[in-house]
């Protein structure tokens, strides 16, 4: 949906210093552009790590962003709970929304994504058009200025 260069430029403009990520097939093609940008990529082995590392980066004065798939959101619930709600660290995440663009998809990852975000009380937007990068920037800035966490769901097709 988005070119990696455009994403990298947007994140750089937003002041993001580190992307802590475990990509899926929609996020993965952004790797080269992110690597070529001022943003530093931190690769993790499991998504729970991503929230904790991003929290440490935040404590140390950096401006991290978490980038994972919705399946990773499910996996990382305890780390997310601790960082966002116990420690009250207002991280922002871009989360791949697997199967969103597949009509009548039976993919349970699609079925549970938004209910889970609602259960966590996480403010989120859906990125499904090219112009959505501007919406991402607006939402990111709003969350940052209000000191609250936020999520941008990236609409994806195939499972």
């Amino acid at each position, binding site marked *: 949906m988005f070119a990696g260069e455009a994403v990298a430029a947007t994140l750089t403009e937003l002041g993001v210093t580190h992307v802590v990520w475990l990509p899926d097939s929609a996020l993965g093609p952004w790797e080269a552009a992110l690597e070529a940008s001022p943003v530093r990529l931190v690769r993790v082995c499991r998504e729970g790590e991503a929230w904790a590392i991003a929290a*440490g980066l935040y*404590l*140390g004065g950096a401006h991290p962003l978490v980038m994972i798939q919705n399946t990773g959101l499910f996996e990382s619930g305890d780390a997310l709970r601790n960082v966002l709600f116990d420690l009250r660290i207002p991280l922002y995440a871009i989360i791949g929304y697997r199967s969103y663009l597949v009509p009548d998809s039976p993919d349970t990852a699609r079925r549970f994504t938004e209910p889970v975000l609602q259960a966590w009380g996480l403010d989120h937007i859906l990125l499904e058009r090219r112009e959505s990068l501007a919406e991402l920037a607006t939402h990111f800035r709003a969350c940052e200025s209000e000191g609250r966490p936020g999520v941008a769901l990236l609409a994806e097709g195939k499972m």
Partner: protein
Amino acid sequence: MTAQQPERTVEVCTPRFRRMPLVPALEVLRDQRRENEVVFTSMGSAREWPKLSQHALDFHYVPSAMGQAQSLALGIALAQPNRSVTAITGDGSLLMNLGSLVTIAASGARNLTVIVLENGIYEVTGGQQTAAASAQLAPAHVDFAVMALAAGIPSARRFHDLPAWQAGVEQALRLPGPRVIVLAVEPVEGYDLPMPKPAIGERVTRFRTTLATSK
């Protein structure tokens, strides 16, 4: 080794049940602490360290997500590469996040030290054995230091008695980082982890401010 036993690729490098007392082991570490060094504690160390040290760069990770202490510390180390960061975690916690060893190795955070307090049990839930310490594994021994090296961590050491730890601590902390130091420690009975004060939100704000303003 008989034909029925599987081949072991990790040798027993220290006697399985020799352990040092926890508090003196932590005192050795405290005595090596640098003035601008972050010490990030969790679980058992978060209970004992505040009795040994009152420092603005101590952060007691309570309440925690078990297994994430070394990952949080890695984030701090990456954000502040000129500052030494020490994370103290437990073997049960590390078992919950073994992939973090690879992540730490890949990060290249030379300023990070992970101390693993290996007592073989989950103290927090009443002392049940970890899978790594279960009798079914004997005579094999899960060696977290060997595991760290295999994950790509440049330096790892394991100490199982206090005199060896006292004699080797300076050299171990000078090894190229990121480094993992495993301390085989005695379990503590009657586990009680009081909630540090002030409340976590205030501690986070204070700690972040201290990190921003201290060198």
